[in-house]
């Protein structure tokens, strides 16, 4: 019963990952790509983490998986914010444009 639920959650998680990846490949600009990745992948990761928590052996293991999900959530939303802000600043700057590489650490 628990195993069936875990498999179902895993499959649902994989579906959201797939949707996020399709969004990354198909969406036209960087902003909507980030949108697709951060929303869909975090949900997918959460569902898979939930499936692993259901099948985990101990409470400690369960809490560790939960912690991993929470840290991934915090990190990915922060990165999303930083990328979005960097892109917004670049579109406002006169020399900006899509020609520059995505990587930029200095502002």
């Amino acid at each position, binding site marked *: 019963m628990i195993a069936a639920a875990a498999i179902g959650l895993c499959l649902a998680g994989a579906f959201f990952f797939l949707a996020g990846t399709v969004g990354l490949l198909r969406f036209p600009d960087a902003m909507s790509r980030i949108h697709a990745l951060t929303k869909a992948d975090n949900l997918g990761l959460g569902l898979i983490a939930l499936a692993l928590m259901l099948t985990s052996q101990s409470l400690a293991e369960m809490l560790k998986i939960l912690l991993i999900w929470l*840290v991934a959530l*915090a*990190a990915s939303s*922060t990165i999303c*914010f*930083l990328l979005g*802000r960097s892109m917004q600043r670049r579109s406002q700057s006169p020399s900006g444009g899509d020609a520059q*590489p995505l*990587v930029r*650490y*200095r*502002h």
Partner: protein
Amino acid sequence: MLSLAFDLLLAGALLLVSWRLLQASDLFQATVLFISFGLFLALAWVRLQAPDIALAEAAVGAGLAGVLLIGTFKRIEPQSRQNHDANDDVQPPGACRLDQAAACPGRFHYGMAGGCAGMLTLLLALAVMDLPRQGTGLTEIVADNLEMVGVDHPVTAVLLAFRLYDTWLELGVLLLALIGVFGVRGAQDLRSLPAHPVDAPVLRGLVLLLGPLTVLVTVHLLWLGDHAPGGAFQAGVVLAAGLVLFRLVGLPSVDRLPRVTLVCLVVLGFATILLLAVATTLLSIYHPLEYPPLWSKTMILTLEAAATVSIGVTLAALVILVLVVDEEP
């Protein structure tokens, strides 16, 4: 059946990514492909039931090397981009773009590099062919002597007791790498580098949240090395990541350390093993680098803790030296 399919997919992905990596004309694309290659390789190590190597590969091979490559890319990209804009059609794709000032390697250099790589592959293939077909290698000897060492995890026993010499030299290599990068950068000190903290309260909040967590995971990984995959290198990489994050948002990190303290922390791991080597050689009851059996576990933990601090500080200093860009003229 399912695992065979997974293995085949993984092997195919590894080959595909490495082929694309070699074919990529864009350096940034090649860097990203290199990172994903490292992650696939880590998965392959998991499938080969070598979680220690998988952890090290993911942390060092994909993470750290990836960051260093991106830093190097960032350093050389603006020049080649300007040149690219200036003469758009002159530069064919795949042409040497590494450093316009240096002479581009010619066909002769590529031929020589290819020849050397071929020879190395041949030697490796011969070495693999030379292995006994049926055999467990040194696994049984390690398992038999494990209780002498006082740790439960065979990999830690090999790295920190049976082949401590190798680990010692690895720490030495790390030290040399840092000295080399300091030399190339011409930097005296991390404090003299320009600091451009990212002014994002959100990032600062995240780093402040992750800070204690980083310390916790470092200590956990260090302690885990006793009985499970983990240990000094993995813990050191986590520590380094935390230190680099702190530096990025302008919080106190390795760059605030006085020069003497920095050097002390960097050589701590190497020096501790050197001390052990000198002590055991002079005491002459033991072989060089042999632990007294009673103290074995304590000494391994001490050495691992010292190595973790050294590895963490050294790697963080390396990344900061490579990532920080000097003021543009």
